């Protein structure tokens, strides 16, 4: 392979979130409309590397990805050793708004997957004027428990291996092998308790469809894309959101699971491309 440097730059943002000093790792690529991307529970911003390397996207968008505190290259805050990590909706929303403000992102398109797909529904409702559009991947209001999460926190279970196994079936069976296993590696690298801490937001908290129905898509367009092999957030869960939000656009992605951007970028782009074109057009019209 000829050596080359990818057109991605990374840096650390020093900021305060919910009264806690944080050092947040950010990557970005491209120029144009800001496209702020939110990774899944227990993983990090590497999930978006294909998007940040795709000129079909970066020719029009400044793709900005950050690792949530405790994830990827965003270390936990000082004193983490005496605390138990637990993500909640308010802190998550404040984190996103803080990064947006600190990086001076002007009406970005906000794209989130899984936990990110959940929080974009909240931000579309509470801060529609701050975003040109939101794109929810694997977006639903709630997930019922389907395995015992206590096994994630036991010293007699390898949490890294368990996270890999739990996520392995959430990838489409025909996804490219290298991308499948890289997606799982990100899970293998999560810190102890971090995935489960994210699941506090994803599984223990929930939105209500009647609250989601308050999203005004004339102020903030809502796009929903859902992978057909995802059994965490089922396509029917995203469809329920779409049915409750006037003007929401929804599509089921064939062959895709829970990690569209990292498991099969080419297949994902066949669905994402038209959405990004639509978001660009509507933002240009002041929508």
């Amino acid at each position: 392979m000829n050596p080359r440097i990818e057109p991605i730059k990374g840096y650390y943002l020093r900021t305060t979130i919910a009264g806690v000093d944080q050092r947040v790792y950010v990557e970005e690529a491209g120029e144009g409309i800001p496209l702020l991307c939110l990774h899944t529970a227990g993983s990090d911003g590497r999930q978006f590397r294909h998007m940040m390397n795709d000129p079909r996207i970066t020719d029009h968008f400044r793709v900005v990805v950050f690792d949530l505190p405790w994830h990827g290259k965003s270390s936990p805050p000082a004193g983490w050793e005496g605390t138990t990590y637990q993500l909640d909706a308010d802190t998550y929303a404040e984190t996103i708004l803080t990064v947006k403000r600190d990086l001076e992102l002007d009406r970005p398109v906000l794209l989130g997957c899984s936990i990110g797909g959940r929080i974009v529904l909240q931000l579309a409702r509470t801060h529609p004027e701050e975003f040109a559009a939101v794109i929810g991947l694997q977006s639903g209001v709630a997930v019922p428990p389907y395995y015992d999460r206590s096994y994630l926190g036991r010293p007699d279970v390898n949490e890294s291996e368990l996270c890999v196994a739990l996520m392995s079936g959430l990838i489409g069976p025909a996804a490219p092998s290298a991308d499948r296993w890289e997606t799982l590696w990100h899970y293998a690298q999560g810190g102890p308790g971090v995935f489960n801490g994210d699941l506090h937001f994803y599984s223990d908290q929930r939105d209500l469809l009647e609250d989601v129905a308050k999203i005004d898509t004339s102020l903030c367009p809502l796009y929903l894309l859902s992978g057909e092999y995802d059994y965490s957030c089922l396509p029917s869960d995203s469809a329920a959101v779409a049915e409750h939000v006037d003007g929401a656009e929804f599509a089921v992605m064939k062959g895709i699971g829970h990690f569209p951007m990292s498991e099969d970028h080419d297949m994902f782009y066949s669905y994402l491309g038209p959405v990004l074109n639509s978001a660009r057009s509507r933002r240009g019209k002041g929508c």
Partner: protein
Amino acid sequence: MLESLADTINADAALVRRGRYVNATMLWDLGDERYAVAIEHGRVVSVQKPHVMATWTFAVRAPLSEWQEFWHADPKPGSHDILALLRRQVAVVEGDLHPFMANLMYFKGVLAAPRQGAK
């Protein structure tokens, strides 16, 4: 129905290695038929139909029709992973779940072994 299970699994060196710390008996309930799958160090040492009293570490239960969909070479969404069956509440796993959860990737391989060569 699971006559070739031991040969299939024991011939898969990567899977056996993944399960090298597994010593357990899994009761595999297919609805009308039940099999006690005894595993030592990742190798299947016996697959038996228990008679009246079965001893097992944990049991995995689902109707035969669900297993047949699960074993399809190109399973449809919702039938492609044991956790998908749990999510749809058509399968249950019960008993001492520690070996199952601590070696989940291994047992996913065991449960999917009949998929090899499926049409």
